């Protein structure tokens, strides 16, 4: 079984400031890691994913994440946020012994203010 913990339920940030969203996971087998974004009244959109290879992953809208196996973390970062980045962000894992089943964290609400 695996679990995902997002350490911050809400992150307020000023426009053009950097943001980091923290995600830790636990699993007895290898996992694939994902970050999704959910805008109000919308479905989920994939930001980026880590499957293998380079531990620094770049995604859409200027986001990037770094996989740290020893710390079982997959933190999401953006160097300069925009008002339009206000949304809920979900970290998720798929264990390599499951059949595509996404296990989500509870989410982090990012609120960007001018």
């Amino acid at each position, binding site marked *: 079984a695996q679990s995902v913990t997002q350490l911050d339920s809400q992150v307020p940030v000023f426009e053009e400031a950097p943001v980091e969203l923290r995600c830790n996971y636990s699993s007895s087998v290898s996992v694939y890691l994902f970050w999704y974004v959910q805008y109000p009244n919308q*479905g*989920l959109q*994939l930001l980026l994913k880590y499957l293998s290879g380079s531990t620094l992953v770049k995604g859409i809208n200027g986001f990037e994440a770094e996989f740290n196996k020893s710390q079982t973390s997959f933190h999401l970062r953006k160097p300069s946020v925009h008002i339009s980045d206000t949304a809920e962000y979900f970290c998720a894992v798929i264990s390599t012994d499951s059949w*595509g089943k996404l296990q989500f964290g509870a989410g982090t609400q990012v609120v960007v203010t001018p």
Partner: protein
Amino acid sequence: EAGVAQSPRYKIIEKRQSVAFWCNPISGHATLYWYQQILGQGPKLLIQFQNNGVVDDSQLPKDRFSAERLKGVDSTLKIQPAKLEDSAVYLCASSLDPRERNTEAFFGQGTRLTVV
């Protein structure tokens, strides 16, 4: 390419009534998922289909929830009778073969259910 279509977008029902949600996945996607997202929580998988067969329904409350995907394309999720705690957003997603690790799941906009 058309995305995952869901209907209705919103539904309000009284407890003990029944309700059904419909999902049409992306054309050619063999795998279809139904997730339940309760306010303040991450989505939780209810059921996963591969074509018209069930891969995982371990989290589906089978005494009141049912789902089908008869022709391996669109799917219906039903709740009968509904309880207050069923108030949530129901998300449908689809993907190509999830055993291919580069496969991405695409999500619909969801159906927001309110049980009063």
